[in-house]
């Protein structure tokens, strides 16, 4: 079975590893790096619970091979908090009650962070479109939208 040496930078820390061709990025993140904030939901690229940033773009890490991320920069939910201070998006989800069970939250926040890095003042419609690949079965999305709006204001 083919093994490949990969180098990735995750939340600013360089990692080298030997991985099987078929190892999925989400498994690499959770099991090799023990960063379990990234969740596995549907496992079929529908739900977005596994969303991480791959070279700055939010992607579904259940549908990327670890070896495809070789040489790339990754950011996971663990990388949002800086020096003990929550990212404004994390603060928004707390303040606006943007979660209930919390399972979709890491992915939802990673998509929201990427949106706000591209668009400082998204409309409600733009927020809803941006998170349309992230499923939440609890909230009905109303408070998630409010959380992103809170973060947008905070970041401006």
């Amino acid at each position, binding site marked *: 079975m083919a093994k*490949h040496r990969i180098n990735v930078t995750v939340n600013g820390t360089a990692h080298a590893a030997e991985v099987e061709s078929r190892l999925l990025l989400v498994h690499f993140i959770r099991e090799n790096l023990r960063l379990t904030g990234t969740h596995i939901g549907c496992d079929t*690229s529908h739900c977005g619970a596994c969303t991480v940033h791959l070279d700055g*773009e*939010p992607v579904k890490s*259940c549908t*990327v*091979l670890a070896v495809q991320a070789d040489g790339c920069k990754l950011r996971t939910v663990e990388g949002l908090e800086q020096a003990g201070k929550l990212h404004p998006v994390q603060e928004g989800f707390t303040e606006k009650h943007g979660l209930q069970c919390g399972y979709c939250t890491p992915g939802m926040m990673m998509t929201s962070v990427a949106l706000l890095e591209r668009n400082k003042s998204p409309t409600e419609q733009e927020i809803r479109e941006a998170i*349309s*690949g*992230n499923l939440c079965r609890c909230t009905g999305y109303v408070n998630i939208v409010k959380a992103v709006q809170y973060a947008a204001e905070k970041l401006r």
Partner: protein
Amino acid sequence: MIPAPFDYHRPGTLDEAVALLARYGDGAKVLSGGMSLLPILKLRLGAVAHLVDIGRIPGLEYIKEEGGMLKIGGGTRQAALERSELIAAKYPILRDAVVLIADPLVRNRATVGGNLANGDPGNDLPATMITLGATLVVRGPKGERTIPVSQFYKGIYSTALAPDEILAEVRVPIPPPRSGGAYLKLKRKVGDFAVAAAAVQVTLDAKGGIERAGIALTNAGATPIEAADAAKYLAGKALDDKVVAEASRLAAAKSSPSADRRGSVEYKQEMARVLVGRALRKAVARAGGR
């Protein structure tokens, strides 16, 4: 879910990729964005001995007009197509279609070439490219050849692409003045394939009548369906309710969808009819007509 074991190759050039495909034959498969292939491998609906990853080959991601053609690199991410000002301004039918594919996160990985080469009749770009009269440039061991999109699809997941060929570029003739197009898709939710979808591209004559039309349907049979009868009927006609009704009827008559959880055959054909009519009106309006 974990795919069955395979070997992974990351060639640095398209020619190296073609050489790997030639060496491994049927055991090899091209990996581009992976948004269709990886789920198939994970669900073990398919297996492959060698994955040839073309996703990092430089020079495959571009959108430009050159020599009377819109040229899109096969490796262009769908998100790039979605964000392209050129596409939004001059090729609204492509912008219509791309934002209806899967969801924004998938489009960050998924490629234009993948959507066209995969051969899934549910994919949205093939019908739009047929109506635009696009041609595919494919690279194989003997060099390049071109295939009109209208002749590319042979059956479900079956195309004119040989196992050792890679889709390198899509070429769309720049539409003449007074042209416009639209793509409309009915789907149950974000991420779903079409219940029915229609692509219409028209060019108007100086009086506002239809000079040329292209019509194609998504998920209405084993391949994208080109509604040539309806297009032929439209040529030379001024658009009115009767003309829209007849063109829609002719186009929907070409569809042969299967009944599934998205609906019955009758429902899907009726939705195709309605969508062709709406897309036709929108295309004509965008072309500067009424």
